């Protein structure tokens, strides 16, 4: 055991002192290297992995967004009280449209919450900016066949043809989980 045979000579103390400052440098270097790697990875990941949150309105009016990776949230357009969705089983393609809803959480709150905002967007979908979405060969969330107003958050790129090519699709159906008092039919 080397620890057991230590001699406390001044020479050794000096050597230890030298080793300590050397060690401090090594630690600093290791720490900086780790921080550097992490910062690099985070920045690179943020650039590659991030998508800009846009509204349907921004996406349909701003031509500079064509071909850029964006994330857009909208209400799924309905027909006859159901989400208007078509699935082509030969090509594994899902077709639907989304209509404009605000992006800002404060605006949504002022509009009476997500459920109300979605319902009014669905009702006025022929007046509001709307884009068609194509979603090829991916898992299809069960909620897409819902008959309640549904929020779709799609990620992908806007094509030159004005169609949004989605690579991910996330759905939210706020009224499904709301604990509010259910609507009651007039009984009087």
């Amino acid at each position, binding site marked *: 055991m080397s620890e057991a045979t230590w001699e406390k000579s001044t020479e050794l103390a000096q050597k230890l002192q030298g080793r300590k400052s050397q060690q401090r440098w090594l630690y600093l270097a290791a720490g900086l290297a780790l921080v550097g790697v992490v910062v690099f990875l985070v920045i690179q990941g943020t650039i*590659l992995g991030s998508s800009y949150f846009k509204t349907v309105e921004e996406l349909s009016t701003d031509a500079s967004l064509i071909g850029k990776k964006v994330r857009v949230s909208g209400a799924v357009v309905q027909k006859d009280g159901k989400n208007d969705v078509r699935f082509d089983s030969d090509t594994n393609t899902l077709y639907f449209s989304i209509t404009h809803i605000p*992006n800002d959480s404060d605006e949504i709150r002022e509009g009476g919450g997500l459920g109300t905002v979605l319902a009014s967007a669905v009702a006025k979908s022929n007046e509001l900016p709307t884009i068609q979405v194509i979603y090829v060969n991916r898992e299809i969330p*069960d909620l897409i066949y819902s008959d309640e107003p549904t929020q779709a958050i799609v990620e992908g790129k806007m094509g030159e043809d004005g169609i949004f090519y989605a690579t991910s699709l*996330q759905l939210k159906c706020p009224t499904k989980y709301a*604990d509010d008092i259910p609507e009651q039919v007039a009984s009087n």
Partner: protein
Amino acid sequence: MIAELGIVTTGAAFFIAVATTIVALYSALTKNEVLTRSARNMLIFILPLLTIGCLLLIYAQWTGDYSIAYVSSVSSNTQPESLKITALWGSQAGSLLFYSWMLSLFSVAAVVTNWKKQHELMSWVIVFTSGTLAFFLLLNVFYENPYERTWMNPNGDVSTIESSLLQPEGKVVAFPWKTSLFDRQTGEIQDFTIFTTGADEEPLITNTRYIVRSAVYDGNGLNPLLRHPGMVIHPPMLYLGFTGFVIPFAFGMAALAIGQMGATWIHAVRRWSLIAWMFLSIGLVLGGRWAYDVLGWGGYWGWDPVENSAFLPWLTGTAFLHSVMIQEKRGMLKGWNISMIISTYLLVLLGTVATRTGLLSSVHSFAQSPLAIPMGGFLALSLVGSAGLYLWRGNQGYFKGDHEIEGILSRESMFMLNNWVFFALTIVIFWGTWAEKITDFMRGLGLRESVINLGPEYFETPTAILFLIIYLLMGVAPLVAWRRATANRLGKALRIPTAAAVVTMVVMLVFGVGIGVVLGVGIISFAGYATLLEIYKGTHARHRTHGEPYPVALYRLTQRNRRRYGGYVIHLAIVIMGIGIIGSSLFQDVTQRTLAPGQTLEIGPYTMRYNEVFTAVGVDDRDMIIADITVLRDGKEIENLRPRQDFFANSSPMSIAGVHSTVEADFYALLTFWNGNEVTFRVYYNPLVNFVWWGSFLLVFGTLIAAWPDRDPVFATQQRPALRTAAAGAGD
């Protein structure tokens, strides 16, 4: 009656918790022993109150007291009995009460068991536990009270319906009736919930447009997505983990408050932290298992904000479990350990905030709720309070270590490095999770123009790299001696595991596996070989010196040094899970095809034949579309599976996969679309996915070994000096 009792018991629990915090704080500042004891008794008294509160709610769910809004939202007449009980944590308000109950149970247990041993810490421990409890009860009583009821005018006027905790003037309790109406004008049948003034008073429809087909006094029942065994156990496990970490935090803060930065507080909470960590791990794995079974996307981890929110305290908690060992052995890293447990506590609170307020966009979050402001406030208060106390003591020099790190190549520095990497992981995942909120906030201040959102791709590379560094350390660190190691000796110890890992990599390369994967599996398997070798060396030494057969030697060795060998078992579990994660994420195969009856598709080594599609109605009135498929391998029929989609009257549909599971891989088929007899299937081949689940069993086993209470404390202390020399002799 039940609702009133519930309101009174939980309300009383809240006021007592506030009073306890004040009394404990006063007793801590004045060092008044009598008041400390009063605070303890008050804290203990909260537990039966909350127990009654929980039992009352369970009773209401069991008997179907649907006038309580919460009960109606999570229970129904047809719901299986077991789910009528577990509905206690089926939604926001009830689960918050359950959470408070657990916290109260843990606080009482921690205070009672440490009352004598850690007496000087006790008044402060009560301050921090009852303060946290008071906060959760505040939410429970004033924001999300599970005993809220629905009220209406006695004349049955629907426009007067409101929900409220206390009886509004001139109104009576309203009872929900599930009513099916026939609409004469459209010829359609529609379902409604109609409130009446009595549980035996059927709704009276005077509008001649409708005919009542049926009316039953009933609740909505639990969200069908949550009627899964994984979802029944997952929340309590996660809460046990979350609330469990409050205890080490309280002890750490107490030690900080009285300025005793030695290892005594760490001894007191070592097992607590381990057990809390184990429950958090189980909670995370079960959440993944639930997603795999129910959410129908073939995966178990999607870097979803809510998943991440539970993962973040796990990372800092794991760092803490490692770094406390240095303080126990060498009296170092005193400040770092405190900062890790503070971070864990804050991340637990943040995770709770994120899950419960809908602050982060996620598939898991509860609906938007009014909790954001009080929760954010408490989080800010905790952050400022703990950081202030930390900096104050730090400035006074309380964190100075008993030793300094002697060698760059030492167990201490390996642990340090491990903690840095865990902390780096925490920061990477934290940014990925909160980037959307942070950039949204900056946009609000006019600092940014757009909001960014980071998807799963952001997380993959940085976390993979950092985790591989952790695996590397996992293999090397246990072989490095305390204080100072020599490169020469370490190199010798590393020879065998390195050689084994290289052989593994060469074999994989021969089979044509890509270089990235080979490197990943190589590093992970290196950690596994090194751990196995350590266990073998210890067992072999004992076998030689004591002449015991290998199994006995292993058992005795573990018994003597449970923490160390329990830790090795956990490391092996993490190795197995790592291999499962690499296999199932990098070698996953997926195909989506539309088939007519009799047609087949191929995936991996399997062939799938589609036989027929039919509909059925489940016991809880769910409509099911069921496809019958046969899985074949090498032309032989292996198993018949029935992937299906379930539809519910008042909830979203749900896909249940048909899974054929083997050691090697899962065959996982989803029914995604059907048109007449033609069905579109999405089929996954998930290699090694079961390693993830099996690894988690081993992880629990390892934690239990490490945390098992000492059988005989006297014996243990007598043995300790002898053990230390023995361990040093073995090159520890």
